[in-house]
């Protein structure tokens, strides 16, 4: 019997899964206008390869992966590119980012799709296909999968490949429905990953509040050797390091990655897009998204990337009364949106319309009483109250001594804090400040080097000038000698100043001047 290795801390949260997981995934209507952000993944923004006025086909590449950690972006439907400009995107800042705006022609004409036989391909070719198909982690972080599917430089052999179907956050059910309905496709994608990584074992972690999904996945995995491991529902079991610990007992090192202990982890929806990309030649142009909370008919939608959130909410029956905030992601790790006119991205697994009921009531913040409740629930084994003191005092180096960057921002500490201190906000603030200072330092170092190089160049030029003068000095002296002294010197100078026979040609004089 497979053993589980519970991680430290975590919470039993309210589930709110049944609101949206009772109906099958619906196909969202084709929007008239799609706004497709070129930065939908971690890493460098895709480089636009279309301009306004261009006709595009469904699945045609409109943004090219720019650098190793990057992914391509594709037209979700056929139509005309209206413009390529900055538009609001789902981001906690509410700031705009570069988008390709496409007016759909309603015909959904595909580009030529080329399914490939992955067994016949060299791993690097296969990774390139996935990169050009825009495959990124669909669990929320949107890290380019091709990078994670490359073991070279890390280790000889992968011990465990984990497929993450835990879906531990309340309200979200898109992976649950996908596993129920597309288990075969997920396993087909898993075959491709196994081909690339050659792991010793393959585990599929699913929280045990999804019995239908577990049953579907067990059936699809029959005869493959992949093992489905139901896990108790305990937030945040779907977080990478916690799931690795839960299923394998291995602790990921501080500031390290699961690959350091021989484990690699992918979301179930990512495996499904790998299957579509390889076996059907379809790039990532849509995803399953849960629209839930205070909407009239919560459910899951297979929607094109670039579809405005407002249209998805409309198809979920519209807002109920009393919605106070629109959240992308779950209530624990998601963020509030500034507007519902932002487009669906690869990272958007859930749109949660929250009313006062769903939002934790804003209570007055009280001083920390050092009760230690946050320490008990921290799944990363940190000391949240120490991090809080140092982040609050802006003592960033001390916060780093307490492993600030191991914090996964799961929100367990803020939830249990009896003084209602917004702990995670302090950690995010501190992390951002440290990153900004780091960037500043790099920029200063570059400026120092450039300034140094300039001073050296000026010095070198000065010396070269002097050396030239020194070289010329004896020659001048010798000429003066041979022409018989100072008087003649003056005469020759006068002769030189007289108009040259070539003087009719102004270009020649200018050249002499120079």
């Amino acid at each position, binding site marked *: 019997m497979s053993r589980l290795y519970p991680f430290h801390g975590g919470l039993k949260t309210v589930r709110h899964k049944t609101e949206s997981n009772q109906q099958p995934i619906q196909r969202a209507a084709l929007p008239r206008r799609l706004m497709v952000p070129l930065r939908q993944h971690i890493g460098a923004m895709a480089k636009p390869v279309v301009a306004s006025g261009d006709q595009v086909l469904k699945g045609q590449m409109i943004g090219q992966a720019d650098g190793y950690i990057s992914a391509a972006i594709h037209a979700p439907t056929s139509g005309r590119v209206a413009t390529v400009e900055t538009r609001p995107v789902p981001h906690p800042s509410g700031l705009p980012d570069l988008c390709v705006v496409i007016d759909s022609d309603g015909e959904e004409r595909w580009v030529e799709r080329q399914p490939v036989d992955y067994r016949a391909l060299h791993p690097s070719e296969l990774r390139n296909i996935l990169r050009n198909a825009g495959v990124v982690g669909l669990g929320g972080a949107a890290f380019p999968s091709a990078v994670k599917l490359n073991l070279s430089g890390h280790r000889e052999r992968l011990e465990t490949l984990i497929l993450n179907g835990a879906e531990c956050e309340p309200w979200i059910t898109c992976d649950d429905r996908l596993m129920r309905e597309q288990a075969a496709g997920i396993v087909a994608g898993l075959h491709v990953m196994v081909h690339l990584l050659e792991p010793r074992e393959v585990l599929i972690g699913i929280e045990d509040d999804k019995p239908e999904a577990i049953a579907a996945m067990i059936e699809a995995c029959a005869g493959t050797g992949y093992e489905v491991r139901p896990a108790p529902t305990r937030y945040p079991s779907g977080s990478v390091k916690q799931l690795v610990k839960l299923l394998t007992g291995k602790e990921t090192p501080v500031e390290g990655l699961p690959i350091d202990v021989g484990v690699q982890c992918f979301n179930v929806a990512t495996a499904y897009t790998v299957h579509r990309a390889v076996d059907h030649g379809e790039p990532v142009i849509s995803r399953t998204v849960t629209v839930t909370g205070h909407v009239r008919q919560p459910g899951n939608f297979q929607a094109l990337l670039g579809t405005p959130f407002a249209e998805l909410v409309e198809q979920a029956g519209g807002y109920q009364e009393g919605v106070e905030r629109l959240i992308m992601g779950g209530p624990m790790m998601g963020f509030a949106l500034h507007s519902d006119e932002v487009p669906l991205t690869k990272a958007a697994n859930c749109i949660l319309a929250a009313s006062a009921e769903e939002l934790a009531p804003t209570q007055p913040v*009280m001083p920390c009483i050092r009760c230690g409740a946050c320490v008990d629930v921290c799944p990363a084994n940190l000391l949240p109250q120490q991090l809080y003191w140092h982040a609050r005092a802006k003592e960033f180096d001390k916060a780093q001594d307490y492993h600030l960057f191991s914090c996964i921002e799961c929100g367990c500490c803020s939830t249990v804090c009896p003084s209602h201190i917004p702990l995670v*906000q302090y950690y995010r*603030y501190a992390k*951002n*400040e440290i990153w*900004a200072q780091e960037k500043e330092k790099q920029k200063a170092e570059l400026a*120092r080097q450039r*300034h140094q190089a300039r001073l050296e160049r000026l010095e070198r030029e000065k010396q070269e000038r002097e050396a030239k003068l020194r070289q010329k000095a004896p020659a001048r002296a010798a000429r003066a000698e041979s022409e018989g002294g100072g008087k003649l010197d003056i005469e020759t100078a006068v002769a030189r100043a007289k108009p040259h026979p070539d003087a009719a040609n102004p270009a020649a004089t200018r050249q002499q001047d120079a």
Partner: protein
Amino acid sequence: MIAAILVLSALAGVSGLLLGFAAIRFKVEGDPIVDKIDAILPQTQCGQCGYPGCRPYAEAIAAGEADINQCPPGGENGVVALADLLGRDPKPLNAEHGAVKPKMLAVIDEQNCIGCTLCIQACPVDAILGAAKHMHTVIASECTGCELCVAPCPVDCIDMIPIAQTITTWKWTYPSVTAKAAA
């Protein structure tokens, strides 16, 4: 008596040799405190402190000729870091050397540039590209926002513009606590 003198002389001799060896083997090139001060300074190379660049200012601080509050681009945080390093009390920035401003970027109005190369000669980090009688332009990623190119321009075609915030430079702000009860 003689034994004691001998032992002490031998000890002194050995110690002297050791010290002599250490002085050669572990010789410190330059002044390490200057490097530490220079590492804190923002490397804008703007000269607002009264010295021709960040390193000369660092040398002046180390020599006790300059105060630690003469660098507006470093801001209050810079003063605090210098005070920490040198074991002094932090003090407010000296207003004589200018005020703290948001980070700026020099932009050349290329329509009006006459190609005089004066700004190229003024730029302390070689961030301006161009040739005589040809249009110049600023390499934005290398510009430190020092403003030294603005004054020499004979046709006034260089503007300092604030660097706009984007998604990649945006930061979470310090949490605003709703109640005043927080200690």
